[in-house]
C-alpha cells in the first residue's frame, strides 16, 4: 500500500507535510528502537515503527533505504529532527498507538518484516 493509504487507514499524523507521500508501494516494515538493529536489519523500502526520537533516526532510516518512519506511542521528535527529515526527503508519521498495535495493523494490511515473503 502507499504511504498515503497507510496514513489514512491508521489515522497517522503527518509530521512532514512539506513532503509528498503518494509514492511507491510499501510492502515491508520493521519495528525497533535500537538504531544499530535498524541499520543491520530493516528491509529496504519498508517503514520503521519506533519510539527512538534521537536525530540519528533520520540518517539511519536513509542509510537503510526506508520509505518513512512512524513514531509510535505518542512519541515525537524535536523540530530539529523534523527539519532534517524534510531536508533529506524522509517522511515522518506519528501514531498515538503502541508499536505493537501499529505493527499489528500494518501486518493485517499485508506488510511483512525482513525476510518474510509479502
Amino acid at each position, binding site marked *: 500500500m502507499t504511504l498515503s493509504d497507510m496514513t489514512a487507514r491508521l489515522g497517522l499524523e503527518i509530521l512532514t507535510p512539506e513532503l509528498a507521500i503518494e509514492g511507491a508501494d510499501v510492502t515491508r516494515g520493521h519495528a525497533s528502537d*535500537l538504531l*544499530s538493529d535498524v541499520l543491520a536489519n530493516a528491509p529496504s523500502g519498508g517503514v520503521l515503527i519506533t519510539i527512538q526520537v*534521537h536525530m*540519528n533516526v533520520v540518517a539511519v532510516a536513509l542509510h537503510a533505504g526506508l520509505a518513512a518512519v512512524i513514531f509510535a506511542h505518542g512519541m515525537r521528535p524535536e523540530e530539529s529532527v523534523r527539519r532534517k527529515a524534510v531536508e533529506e526527503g524522509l517522511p515522518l508519521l506519528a501514531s498515538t498507538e503502541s508499536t505493537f498495535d501499529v505493527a499489528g495493523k500494518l501486518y493485517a494490511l499485508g506488510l511483512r518484516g525482513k525476510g518474510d515473503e509479502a
Partner: protein
Amino acid sequence: MLRLAADLHIHTVLSPCASRAMTPAAIVREAAARGVEVIAVCDHNTAGNVTAVAAAAARMDRGPFVIAGIEITTSEEVHVLGYFPSAESAVEAGRAVTERLPLWRPLTSRTASVSRGPREPDQQIVDAEGNVTGIEERMLAAASPYSLSETVDLIHSCGGLAIAAHMDRRSFSVPGQLGFLPPDVPFDGLEISAAGVSRGCEREFACHGITLISSSDSHFPTEIGTGITALDVESMSFDELALALRGSCGRGCAIA
C-alpha cells in the same frame, strides 16, 4: 611527570547489578593490591557512595586517588560516564538525575515465583566502613529522561568530563542504541571495554579523533584493574585528569 594506572569505571553496592562485595573498603583494597593508582566510582544514575569510597581510600596507606563519577543512562538508553571535580559536584549532578527516575518497584508475585528477583531494591548507600546507611528508592537501572546531548550538557554544567561508555558493546552504547556517534556531541573521551581492548577493537574508534580510554566497568572486586588507562600527569587531581584527556600541557593518556 608520573605515569599512573587508572581504572575509571567501577561500581559499588549502590548499583543494583553490582555485587554486595563492592564495598568502599573492598574496592580500594583491591585497587591497591592490583596496582591501580586512580579509580573513578561510577554507579548507575547516582553518586551516593562516592564520598564513602573517597573516605575509605584516604584511610589507607597509599590508597588510590578517587574520582567522583556517575554512569548516567540517557533517554535513548545510552550509558555516559561523568567524572566530576569534587564529590559535591558529583552529588549535585547525581541528584538531578536520580530524582527524575521512577521509583523502584518489585516484580509482581506472579512473575516473582518464576524468577529470583529481589523484593527490595538492592541499592545500598554505605559509609566508609561499609555499614548500610540507607537504601536508594529510585530505580537506578531505569533510563533518565535526559537525552544524550542533555546528559553531556548536564555533566559539563557541573564542571565534569563526559565519556561515552563501552563504545564497543552492543547494548547501552552510542553505536548500539543510535547506530553511530553523532558528530555534534562534545564528548571528552570514548571508553572501550576491557574485552574490546583484548579483541584489538580500539582501532575502530580512533577515526573519531576523541581520546580513547579503557576501564573495567567492575561489578565484582576481581574485575577491578582489568581495564586500565595510563595517565601521564604532573601529579594527581581532577584538573590533571582533564588535561590528560585533552592531551594538553604535556599530559596525556592511553589505553594500557
